[in-house]
């Protein structure tokens, strides 16, 4: 079970809802992933096209925990406002803090992320900050009271997978709250690897929405995350430099 704040989840996959080209495919991908947590962004309503369909009208909102993000914010102040807007919907009390500090790499601004996390915790939110893989920053976020730490595997949408497993592992080892690897996952192998390292969950979006077959990829991610978690819990063998035979070395039957 994955526990965030006071909520418990069976699935360890958190699915982003961005960049799907088709609502039907998106709904089927969400179902195939068996996720229980969906992320959203907060944006201006198009008041001149009120009939424009919205995903929230297509899914049974009561079946999912909504995790709005503060994407678009570049300062803590902007992130806090977006979080407050999201909460005023009455649909959610969880927030993914996302404060981007570099337009090219889309890496988060550590200082503004820390400030936003502190303020949102004061305001009573369940706060899940998206952060870089900085070990000390992750510890500071935890000490503030963040309900989960969400270090990136690699830049958002890059599909580069886990590029710093050592840092991620350090973060997982020290953390007393769930660590959810967020951003950069490209393949099921990446997701399984993150889980095998000891992640409590994986948040991904483009890996599914951008796949040639998003429904199939959603299913693959579900299994990968389950497999990685099971492998972690099962306890893998330590790595050795040279080969160690798995068959008996003695008792060979010689020729003639």
């Amino acid at each position, binding site marked *: 079970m994955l526990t965030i704040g006071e909520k418990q989840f069976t699935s360890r996959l958190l699915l982003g809802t961005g960049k799907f080209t088709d609502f039907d495919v998106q709904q089927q991908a969400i179902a195939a992933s068996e996720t229980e947590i969906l992320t*959203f962004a907060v944006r201006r309503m198009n*008041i001149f096209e009120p009939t424009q369909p919205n995903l929230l009208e297509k899914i049974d909102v009561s079946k999912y925990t909504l995790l709005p993000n503060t994407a678009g914010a570049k300062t803590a102040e902007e992130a806090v406002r977006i979080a407050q807007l*999201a909460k005023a919907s009455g649909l959610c009390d969880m927030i993914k803090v996302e404060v981007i500090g570099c337009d090219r790499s889309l890496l988060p601004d550590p200082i503004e992320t820390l400030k936003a996390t502190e303020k949102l915790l004061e305001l009573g939110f369940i706060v899940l900050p998206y952060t870089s893989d900085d070990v000390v920053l992750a510890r500071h976020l935890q000490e503030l009271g963040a309900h989960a730490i969400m270090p990136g595997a690699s830049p958002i949408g890059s599909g580069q997978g886990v590029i710093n497993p050592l840092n991620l592992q350090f973060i997982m080892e020290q953390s007393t709250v769930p660590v959810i690897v967020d951003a950069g996952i490209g393949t099921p192998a990446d997701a399984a690897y993150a889980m095998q390292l000891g992640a409590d969950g994986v948040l991904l979006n483009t890996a599914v929405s951008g796949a040639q077959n998003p429904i199939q990829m959603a299913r693959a991610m579900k299994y990968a995350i389950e497999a990685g978690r099971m492998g972690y819990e099962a306890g893998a063998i330590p790595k050795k430099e040279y080969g160690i035979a798995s068959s008996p070395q003695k008792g060979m039957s010689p020729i003639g």
Partner: protein
Amino acid sequence: MQLRVNGHFIDVPEEVQTVAALVDFLALQSKVIIVEQNGVILQADEHERAIQPSDSFEIVTFVGGG
């Protein structure tokens, strides 16, 4: 009465006196929306608030995002 909504100046009929009436006028009553009036975020149960000429509104919703 003229209002500013999401950066656009729009004219609404005189009978639009509350935030809820504005939401109806914009045909958004069945949508998941959050309203900010003159910089104040309104909770879902605060939509009966009165509106005044030249009030400024931000109306936002949830869209796909990661």
